[in-house]
């Protein structure tokens, strides 16, 4: 029979995983709204964001109550503190989905500046990083932590490349400035999602290994 404190931990884990799947879904809808220029999807993102915020509050409440009741130590303490931080990162990924929708509304006021190729790629890379960070969380896959950190550098590089390209558009033709700035902001929001994925991965490393690597590169861990 599962004991009460283990049952409480299972419920907290279930809540954070549900929150992660909501965040992922909302992010995908926001990208669809952007790429397909479909504003009808934005309302769905806004509703999803409310639900995500409620999960953040609920998870923090569950975690604080657990700490008060059980005074957890060792792996349980690391799990609880990690969950609270992961919840906060996920909530901020949710915010980025909303920010992308706001840029979409602005971008839709004018024709496309250029076909969207790099931005969906950036979105895909960030989303995969987020998925892998949660996979590392659930399945103790420490090799993913260093992989995610490396991929974050690729995401930054792609964002910087986009910035350079959009800057050249603006220099060539000042009429493109509004659209280029909106695309720059969008790429910045996507790059922030990758940052949150990296943060989550590093916190997951602390949860399993007991070592804080917040401000350093994670050690490379073999997949096998």
């Amino acid at each position, binding site marked *: 029979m599962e004991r009460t*404190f*283990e049952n409480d931990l299972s419920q907290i884990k279930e809540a954070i995983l549900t929150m992660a799947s909501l965040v992922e879904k909302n992010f995908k809808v926001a990208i669809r709204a952007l790429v397909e220029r479909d504003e009808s999807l934005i309302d769905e993102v806004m509703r999803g964001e409310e639900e995500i915020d409620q999960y953040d509050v609920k998870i923090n409440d569950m975690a604080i109550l657990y700490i008060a009741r*059980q*005074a*957890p*130590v*060792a*792996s*349980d*303490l*690391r799990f609880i503190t990690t969950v609270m931080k992961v919840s906060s990162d996920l909530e901020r990924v949710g915010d980025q989905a909303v920010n992308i929708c706001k840029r979409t509304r602005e971008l839709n006021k004018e024709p496309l500046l250029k076909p969207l190729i790099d931005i969906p790629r950036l979105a895909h890379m960030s989303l995969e990083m987020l998925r892998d960070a949660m996979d590392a969380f659930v399945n103790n896959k420490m090799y993913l932590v260093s992989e995610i950190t490396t991929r974050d550098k690729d995401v930054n590089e792609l964002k910087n490349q986009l910035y350079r390209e959009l800057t050249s558009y603006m220099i060539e033709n000042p009429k493109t400035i509004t659209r280029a700035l909106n695309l720059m902001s969008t790429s910045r929001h996507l790059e922030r999602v990758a940052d949150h994925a990296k943060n989550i991965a590093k916190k997951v490393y602390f949860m399993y*290994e*007991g*070592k804080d690597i917040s401000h350093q590169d994670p050690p490379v861990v073999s997949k096998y």
Partner: protein
Amino acid sequence: MSNESLIAKTKNVMPEETKKRVESEVQMKSLKTSIAETPEGTYATCIDIKKLNLYYGTKQALYDISLTIPRHQVTAFIGPSGCGKSTLLRCLNRMNDLVDNVRIDGEVLIDSKNIYNPELDVINLRKNIGMVFQKSNPFPKSIYENVAYGLRIAGITNKKILDEVVESSLKGAALWEEAKDRLNDSALGLSGGQQQRLCIARAIAIKPEVILMDEPASALDPIATGKIEELILQLKDRYTIVIVTHNMQQAARISDLTAFFYLGKLIEYDKTRTIFMNPTIKQTEDYVTGRFG
């Protein structure tokens, strides 16, 4: 293969340098029994337990315990009931001598002297190693006489010295303010928490080097427990404290080092921070997180 047999094997076949390296690697992998260095500095050893085995009749209660307890630190012994932690604590001032049918192998060195040396004066040893028990046990005498008792039997009769020691001991045990106006009242009229602090005052009156505490706060309410814990933290500047506790949070709050015992064996010994944040051994993890025990 045990570490000892591995080390023994290396002695016969390897060149000296390789032998040393292999020996040190094997020892590094073996159980940590001494926490010699921390980022804060180096610990001086106070108590050194070496390969201690204890038997109650034919039943073995402690298995090959080796452990170094540093001076002026609080070391906590934790583990489920019957794991041998209290038995080990009682070995440190030879309280087990008072139990029938006990046999002890191994050594306990306090300041490098083996306390199981047959020529050692046990009375002197116990003067140097005070003990506080789970249930407070003041003598049915006045508060003053309880604290002065140890000094009187040591032959001190000078009233001025007795007064001074009683005052400093009661202050040291954070009881002076509550007891100074009723020194001649019976100690049995004090509350449970006050009685326990009186027992600590009585222990420190004879200026021991080590204080052993066997669940000193388990019968007290949270406020009295808090006072005892605060007191332990103050006392560690002057005394080496070894405490047995079932209260995991208490060990986490007040101790510098923690030793986890299970079925008479030392399972893990490390800085308290490590034991409660990231223990190395799974059994320790399971115990501190409440998954067994």
